[in-house]
């Protein structure tokens, strides 16, 4: 069993430093890895990233992260990434990494992702240039997730995003917001790549559990949803990937 801990939307700043740390100091007893599902800061400043580094750096387990929309607000995402990586937090944006957990290779492919909506009710690259740019950004993001996941040489594969890959974990959010909360293209990339678990944040009023059309478990770990410092998901290492992934591999 691989024990994957995850939380997102922690929105760190000086006023909340230390709130997660007591639980994080014990994480080595409960989990093998910690995933941070974006919106780690409030505005995406280097100072706030320093708060993230203080809170989530130096833990007993590897920490892998994606950024969220808040982490881009100040236009300094590269600086935020640098501060996090200096603290040993691996930031994934369209790439993957492999962590050894008790002899098992856990591969995590990550990307922030973007909106666009879900199958049958999504934005299309038609009309104004701004609309095409919006959809194009999502397409590029999902393609980079697909590449990150498919390039992993590992035993168990997990997808990490900030935006939602399925509408199921948005249950509780106003329907009108769905196009801004995620994209089915992320879900398609997950279903195409033998993924055992997909983790995201962003939807504070959503719900924790859902699945992709291919049956991959999807978990919304936004802190306002899970209401604990992190959730732990146990993945059996002998478990076969879901049917959706198998179908593509066979085709």
């Amino acid at each position, binding site marked *: 069993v691989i024990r994957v801990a995850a939380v997102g939307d922690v929105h760190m700043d000086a006023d909340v430093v230390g*709130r997660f740390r007591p639980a994080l100091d014990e994480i080595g007893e409960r989990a093998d890895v910690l995933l941070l599902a974006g919106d780690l800061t409030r505005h995406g400043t280097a100072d706030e990233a320093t708060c993230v580094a203080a809170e989530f750096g130096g833990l007993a387990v590897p920490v892998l992260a994606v950024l969220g929309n808040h982490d881009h607000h100040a236009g300094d995402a590269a600086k935020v990434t640098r501060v996090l990586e200096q603290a040993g937090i691996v930031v994934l944006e369209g790439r993957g990494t492999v962590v050894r957990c008790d002899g098992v290779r856990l591969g995590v492919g990550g990307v922030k992702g973007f909106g666009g909506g879900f199958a049958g009710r999504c934005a299309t690259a038609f009309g104004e240039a701004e609309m095409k740019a919006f959809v194009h950004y999502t397409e590029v993001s999902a393609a980079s997730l697909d590449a990150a996941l498919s390039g992993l040489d590992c035993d168990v594969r997990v997808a990490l995003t900030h935006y939602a890959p399925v509408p199921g974990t948005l249950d509780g959010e106003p329907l009108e917001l769905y196009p801004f909360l995620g994209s089915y293209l992320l879900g398609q990339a997950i279903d195409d790549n033998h993924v055992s678990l997909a983790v995201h944040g962003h939807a504070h*009023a959503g719900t924790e559990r859902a699945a992709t059309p291919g049956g991959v478990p999807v978990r919304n770990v936004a802190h306002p949803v899970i209401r*604990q410092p992190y959730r732990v998901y146990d993945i059996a290492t002998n478990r076969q990937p879901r049917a959706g992934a198998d179908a593509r591999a066979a085709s």
Partner: protein
Amino acid sequence: MHDEYRAAQLRRLFAEDSEVAELGIDITFRGTAVVLSGDVASRDRCLAAERLVRQELPDCELVNEIKVIAAGPAVDEEVL
């Protein structure tokens, strides 16, 4: 201005004002009162939202029902 427009304007301000930067605060009008609800990570952030509303709608009665989420201990795990 209609309440609907005032609520829309405030919601945008909650996101765009650098002191608040919260996208998850709901605003409704009940009679003459403006009611805030939702979750934030600290008392400071709750008060920042309240300050913004007092600044924008100085004549409105304000009911602040925003909750501060506790970090709490890690409680349980799920076997997939």
